[in-house]
Every structure is written in structure tokens, then in C-alpha cells.
């Protein structure tokens, strides 16, 4: 297909992967999911620790070079 010559799908896939935690975090805070999130957190409080642990791990092993700095604000 011609569009493949113009769009680097590898970059798009990588960007989508990098953005996944941010998208999921925002999805979980949607009003429609708020009560589900609260119930889930009350039943499985350690699940938050797993998510934070995984995200920390992802940050460490997917790090950029020391001169690169990307600032995110939530």
C-alpha cells in the first residue's frame, strides 16, 4: 500500500507503546469508570503497587540517553 511509504508505522507503534500507561491512567479516571476503580482498589489494594512497580521497571529499562529529557506533567 502506498501510505506505507509516507508513514513510519514502526515509529507510530513505538509511540503508542510509550503512551499506553498515560492513556490507561486517564481512562481509569473517567467518571464512568470511577466507581469501578474505587471498588477494585478497595478489594485489591496491592494491585496499585504492582502497576507502580511495573511502570518503574518500564522507566528504568526503556530509558533514553542521559542527555535526553522529556517532561511529562499529569
Amino acid at each position, binding site marked *: 500500500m502506498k501510505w506505507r511509504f509516507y508513514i513510519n*508505522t*514502526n*515509529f507510530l*507503534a*513505538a509511540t503508542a*507503546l*510509550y503512551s499506553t500507561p498515560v492513556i490507561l491512567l486517564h481512562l481509569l479516571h473517567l467518571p464512568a469508570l470511577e466507581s469501578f476503580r*474505587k471498588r477494585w*482498589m*478497595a478489594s485489591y*489494594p*496491592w494491585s*496499585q*503497587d*504492582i502497576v*507502580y*512497580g*511495573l511502570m*518503574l*521497571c*518500564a522507566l*528504568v*529499562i*526503556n530509558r533514553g*540517553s*542521559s*542527555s535526553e529529557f522529556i517532561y511529562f506533567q*499529569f
Partner: protein
Amino acid sequence: MSSSTSSSKDAPSSDNGNANQVRPWSILLFFLLALAAWEGAIRAGLVPASHGIHQREDNLIRAESYLKRPEGADQVYLGSSLTVRLPTTDLGTRAFNLAFAGEGVFTGLAIVERDLRKPRTICVEMGHTLIRPESDELVASLFGPEGVVRQYLSCMERRYQPVSVLTAAYSRYRDSLAGPAKPVSPKTQAMRDARLAKAVAAAGERYKAPLDEKRGTAIKAAALSLRERLKILRTAGNCVVLYRLPSSEPADAGHFHQDVQRIYDEVFPQAEWFWVMPPKDQAWTTSDGEHLDEPSAKRMAAFLQESAQALESR
């Protein structure tokens, strides 16, 4: 971590009770478990190494792999994107291609100098990209504290970064969906040929004029600096081989490349240094007027391997 704790407390809509409380030790435990799981998967061979998503990452992966090269790889090739094209399989089992696209010889040389495990033979590309300075950032990232950790933990290597690995897996999946390569239609082939002819003509035009004085002075200064550094390696017992790579005929025939070679002949006389020049009786083809295409790169790599081996035994 502390910032997330305070933001949770400050948020007006935070949950009640201990549910939303941040437990650093628990997070640290899950972090270490995830790290150990990834390291285990790599060591078990379940994670295929990636080649990088972009040129810069590819360079970093290449440099990191050099520091972890197998014991027998004692022949290293330093250069620019021209050398990157040379397939390692044709350079021989002992060779490691430590050339970087967008960089020059000095970046690879700095890595070889700082690495404690020195190769037996150092092959250096002698082209006009010699004036490119060393990439401090790339070299520093290899030998800092992070580099020490990387020596022991494979999960800290760039080629095993989850995003790169997953992107490479997606790329492979996409290729598998596309199936075997379809034969190129005559129309497409004609377009490709016309584009290549245009690129070759442009390269010929670019290198037609003689080398200007300013650039000539810069190339000579770089060559003199390189000579001093290579002399140190030679004194330490390493074999240094200098080589020139061919490009398209119009570009090679231009005054520019001949002027550059004249400077190198003056700084590195053939009587004192091992030189490997591309055989003139062979035709070389490129993909863009400058970089060798796959068949030519394979032929040149095999020729370099033979020549370097012959020079080593002298």
C-alpha cells in the same frame, strides 16, 4: 516517587482509607520482580534482540554490542555509514563492524581506546567523513556507571528495551502478513532506475569540484590527529589497516575524492602504513551514488577481509 505520594494526598478526589496509600517497599519489591523476570527471559533466550528503531538507537546498540562482543572477535572496522553497509557475515567471524551512520571514525576509535579489551586488528575507513568529531554523548553513555551495570545486567542493554523489542516484533508480524516479496513491475523498476541515475549524477556533481582550502585544512588536521592516536595503538602491538571504500564512478572520478586521498597519502604514506584500496578492475554499484548497494558491499567486505588477513600476517 515522593512526588506521586504528595500529589495523591493533595488531590481532592483521592480515595478514602489505605487503598490509595503508596507503599514504597511493596512497589520496590514488584519493581525488582519485574526486572528479574525480564532479565530471566533475556537469559533464557525468550527475548529477541532488536536493532533499534532509529539510526541513533542503532548506533548505541552497535556500540554496546561491541563491548560485549565474543572473545574471538578481534578485528574491528571503524568508519561511517559507508562501512555500516559492509555485512558482518562477509567481513569474517573475527570481525566486528563498529561503524556508525551519521558519525565518523573518531567515535569508534574512542570506544576502542577506552575499552580494556583491545582488538588485534583495527581497520579504519579513510573517507571525507573523517572530519566528523567524536560523539561524546555516545561514548560517555557506554563508560559511565550505567555502562558498568550493563556489563552484568542484560536487561539494561538497549537491544533488549521492551519498546524496541515489541516494535521489532510488530515489524516482523507486519512483514509476515505481507508475505514473500512480489516481483517488481517494469514500471516501478524504471522509476527506481531513473531515481538512482539521478542520485548518481548528483553525487558526481557534488564531488566534481576540487577540495576547497577550508575543508582541506580541516581534513588534514583530522588526519594528523588520527595518525597520532593510531600510532599509540600500533606501538601497543595492534595492527592498523587503512582502507578506502569505492562509491559511484562519477563521484570517484571527481577532483574532491582525489584531493582527499592526496592528503591521506601525505599523512599516511603507503611505505609506513597498511593500505587497502578498492580493486580498480571491478565495477562498483551504489544505492544512492555514495553508499555501496548490497552485492557490491558483500564483494568489498570479502575483499577487505582477505586483505586485512594478509596484512596481519606480515
